[in-house]
């Protein structure tokens, strides 16, 4: 009952936060932090208590028609995702205390925040396709609302765009789910969406259906992951969202698309995905995403927009790992979710400091702040260097494994793919150094003479993220052990692959 307990805590916590925020105002962030930490604690206990942790509750059971259960499972892969989601959201909650202190309607903010977290949490721990979709959509509404209500600039249009893109993707997912449902009726005799039952279909799906499934799910999840050319919503949504939400959007939410791809697409399209043609195609797509995002990031003059494009680029890495489809690459891809989550969250928080403390978000008007806010600058440099792939910071380990996975991929052009992929890291280094230089170095504009260090409520989450990024960059073994166990189980469940 532990996982459903966590979900209850999040949902009831949302109500409590709504009530508490009347008295506490923005300080409710601490309460939210506690709630999220509790959920992480419970999930951790659940995972350690039994690896993997499984929970089934009867749900829709109409004999001869539909038998599907509420099926929660926390395995190694899921645990890693849950951990990063909870880490980033918990720290972003503290960050909100400082960031949202003057915001209106703060009660709804924290309520939506926790529901958003519940959606992400539920999406990860679900082991049932339709239940996953349920939580998948649950993420959308609060995030949409928060962008539209507390965002910047042309926030309503941006939120609208975000909603539409995501919805378009979701709709294709529904078709894919329907196809899998049809298959389950044909092959199993009853409509079910429990993954353990659906995994039984593997091997009996013909190639045409696999191709169709791949197409639908790739677009469906690809919109969330912002694969080029499905990325249209991301730069604006991430740039115009209130910063704690940008942190979550870029740090963890887009990665849930990747999770869906691993959990729900790869198993059912193994033969197609693993074929040489599709490997080439998918790797190519990943590289396009990588370079497209990176090149666009290079010319951005808005702090958050630069980071948003960088997220697209980094998503290219993660997708590269998934596209190569082998043990090493998946390990790398998933670990990159973790490391990118930490680093991008950190960088968005830095951008938030620019907006909240400095009050400027254009790179043209920033500069020379290293002396005014040395701590922020140091943390920002750690984040930037991490994204640039500097060893010693978590992202290097994951990129290394991703690249290794590319070499193992089923394609004759693997050396070329590998080289181009690694070349992308030089591009990351380019735009990240530009980012750092334009904000913290160069001459200090006169208007910024009065700027001081960011408040503690902002510094502490940032420092936490930076420390985690370094710890898991130097010694990634604990997490990777969990991940390896999860992947082994996953590969066993889907009948192994290359």
């Amino acid at each position, binding site marked *: 009952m532990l996982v459903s307990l966590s979900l209850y805590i999040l949902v009831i916590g949302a109500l409590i936060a709504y009530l508490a925020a009347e008295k506490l105002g923005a300080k409710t962030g601490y309460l939210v932090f506690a709630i999220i930490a509790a959920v992480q604690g419970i999930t951790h206990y659940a995972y350690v208590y039994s690896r993997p942790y499984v929970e089934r509750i009867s749900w829709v059971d109409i004999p001869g028609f539909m038998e599907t259960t509420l099926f929660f499972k926390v395995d190694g892969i899921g645990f890693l995702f849950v951990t990063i989601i909870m880490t980033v959201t918990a720290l972003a909650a503290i960050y909100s205390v400082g960031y949202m202190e003057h915001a209106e309607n703060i009660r709804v903010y924290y309520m939506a925040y926790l529901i958003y977290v519940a959606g992400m949490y539920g999406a990860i721990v679900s082991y049932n396709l339709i239940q996953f979709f349920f939580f998948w959509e649950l993420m959308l509404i609060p995030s949409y609302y928060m962008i539209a209500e507390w965002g910047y600039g042309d926030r309503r249009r941006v939120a609208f765009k975000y909603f539409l893109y995501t919805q378009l993707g979701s709709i294709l997912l529904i078709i894919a789910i329907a196809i899998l449902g049809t298959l389950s009726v044909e092959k199993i005799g009853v409509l079910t969406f429990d993954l353990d039952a659906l995994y039984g279909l593997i091997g009996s799906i013909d190639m045409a259906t696999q191709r169709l499934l791949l197409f639908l799910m790739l677009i469906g999840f690809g919109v969330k992951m912002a694969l080029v050319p499905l990325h249209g919503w991301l730069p604006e949504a991430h740039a115009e969202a209130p910063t704690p939400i940008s942190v979550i959007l870029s740090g963890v939410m887009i990665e849930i698309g990747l999770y869906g791809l691993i959990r729900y697409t790869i198993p059912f399209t193994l033969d197609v995905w693993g074929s040489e043609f599709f490997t080439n195609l998918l790797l190519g797509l990943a590289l396009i995403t990588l370079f497209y995002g990176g*090149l666009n990031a290079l010319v951005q003059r808005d702090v958050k927009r630069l980071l948003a494009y960088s997220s697209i680029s980094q998503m290219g890495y993660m997708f590269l790992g998934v596209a190569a489809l082998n043990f090493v690459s998946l390990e790398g891809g998933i670990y990159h979710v973790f490391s990118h989550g930490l680093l991008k969250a950190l960088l968005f928080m830095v951008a938030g400091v620019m907006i909240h403390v400095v009050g400027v978000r254009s790179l043209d008007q920033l500069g020379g702040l290293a002396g005014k806010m040395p701590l922020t600058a140091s943390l920002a*440099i750690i984040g930037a260097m991490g994204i640039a792939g500097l*060893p010693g910071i978590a992202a290097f380990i994951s990129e290394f494994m991703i690249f290794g996975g590319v070499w193992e991929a089923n394609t004759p052009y693997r*050396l070329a793919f590998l080289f181009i992929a690694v070349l992308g890291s030089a591009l990351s*280094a380019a735009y990240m*150094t530009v980012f750092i230089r334009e904000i913290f*170095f160069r001459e200090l504009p006169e208007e910024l003479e009065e700027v001081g260090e960011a408040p503690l409520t902002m510094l502490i989450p940032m420092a936490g993220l930076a420390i985690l990024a370094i710890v898991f960059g130097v010694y990634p073994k604990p997490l990777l052990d969990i991940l390896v166990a999860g992947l082994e189980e996953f590969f066993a469940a889907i009948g192994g692959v290359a």
Partner: protein
Amino acid sequence: MAILALLPWVFPFIVAATLPLVAKIGGRARDWYAVSGGLVSGLSSLLIGIDSFDGVLDYLGGVKMPYDLILAEWIPIDGYRVTFGVLLDSLSIFMANVVALIGTLILIYSVEYMHGDEGILRYWMLMNIFIGSMQVLVLGDSLLAMFFGWEGVGFASYGLIGYYYRDEKEYWIGPYPPTHAGMKAFITTRIGDVGLLVATIVIFLTSGTMNFLDLASEPGWAAELARSGVLAATLLLALLGPIGKSAQFPLHEWLPEAMAGPTPVSALIHAATMVKAGVYFLARFTGILYEVYWALEEVGVNIWGELSLFYTAVAFVGAFTAFLAASQGMVSDQIKKVLAYSTVSQLGYMFAAFGMAGLLIEHPKAFADVYATGIYHLSSHAIFKALLFLSAGVVGHAVHSYLFRDMGGLRRYMPFTYSVMMIGSLALAGVPPFNGFWSKDAILHAAYVEGFGYVYLVLAVSAILTGFYTFRMMGLAFHGEESEHVRHMVEEGHPPHDPGILMKAPLAILAAATVVSGFLLPMLGSYFKPLFKFMGVPEEELLAIKIFKSPDFFISTVTSPLFLVAMGLVALGVVPSYMVYLAGRYDPEKLVTGPLKPIWSFLYNRWYINAFYYKVFVDGVYALSRGIYNYFEVTGGGEAFKQLYISLSEAARRVQTGYLRMNMSYMLLALVLMTILYMVVV
């Protein structure tokens, strides 16, 4: 006593991490605590060195070198083993000593040099991070561990080049502000690292390990790569890393601008240690490839074709860079820039040495010979280039400028500096008996003896140029007319002067080392024995051991007919330089504005390579990015879709006319159409 193997690289990191706390105590505590990072690292390296002197590490329980101290299972990857450990062998221990001892001297020098700088804390932290990373680089036992250090020094270098982050005009080198130079260095070396990382991954996934010793002892990976036809490609990709790090052509353009950082940084990072990382990598990998080559030869697999391609490339790159940079050094207008070009050029010598060594892989004795010269030059260059840079720093400190036009006639005001710098210059130019002569001559000697005629030729010409630019530098700085700037300083009552004791002491030590080490280093012959153990040749017959072992080497060098040629080369460079700049016989201005103008501007503009790179890569990428952004992102299709949707909607609404008769007609029309349909279908 395994802790001894940890101290050299862990301690600087600890210092860097705790420095902000110590800094609260006071400025003096902070400075000396920071120095202690280098000091402890150096002393422990030294202890390990002494400990290992007889090929046995007593503290570590009498194990033989090479010894791989595995500290942790590091990154679990299914089916592969990635461990983190410290590799102790002659090469790594020797490098560790070079790094930490020179580093310590430079840190001591910095205490005075950087005194009162507002960002001093950052400086100390980065310097310690640098030393720690450099030690990880040289002591790490695997490609991955080395890569950690490799990127760590890259980062520290990035931070220190852009140390004057406000981009004040006085720190600009060339047309670029310091932070720009830092970026340039970081990104250029990153491009080189792309190749290195690719090669690392390919080798790792082919062999299942990244450990150097495993790679050497299990040569299957090379055979495997050779079979799939990518061995040469892999090695050439790996070469990109050293090329970037050691600023070799075509990735050499970052180093001159990297001088924008404080001078101790230039001395430590961009002359003595970090840029040697590429050379170290070559030394390390040449050893491995040697073993691999012979092991495969035994099982009947020949990889000579791939290796020769690789080493030809190394030799070519080295020789060409040596010439390229030396030629640019002749016209530079900043003292640190001359030294930067000179560094690039000297690194080219080392590359050439290892390239030649690799090409001799089939002849173990000759191989060992040439290989040894590379290491020899590496160490002596580290010493005299550090000395030169630190002296240049003193000059710059004294006149508040690094431009030659602000100097001139300084020898009167700073005799100590003049004398130590002259020692360094003589070493650089290759005048006996200073260390630079022995090591450089060894390379030239080897090139000639082993029959690399073209390499010899190019290196010999570069040696002439080296002599020329070295004395041009000395002449412009210390001889000749006092510049207006210096006169101004004297008039104001602040004449340029020699530095305090904290700066003098390191200079003196380094100058002494420059004199002595030429003789001392070969004495370490027995120490290097284990390094050449792998060659499987009785060591008595090994020329390299012989020359490293006894003073015979010096005698044979001096008595060889090539000695005269070498002296001639130096003279060919030094004499014109002396005539023009020291003795003042000709006005250099007239020469460069007159007949030599086109050559001058070609060299001054760095053969236009820099401009070309900026045009193509920087502007090109930016233009591409802007194009993509403006074309795809700004003018997105969203608006068109919206308009289409709205107009479709408006059109659709016209159906609803509001006429009752119209509504009825739809109904009847449907009836009629359906009836017609039945007629057709049934």
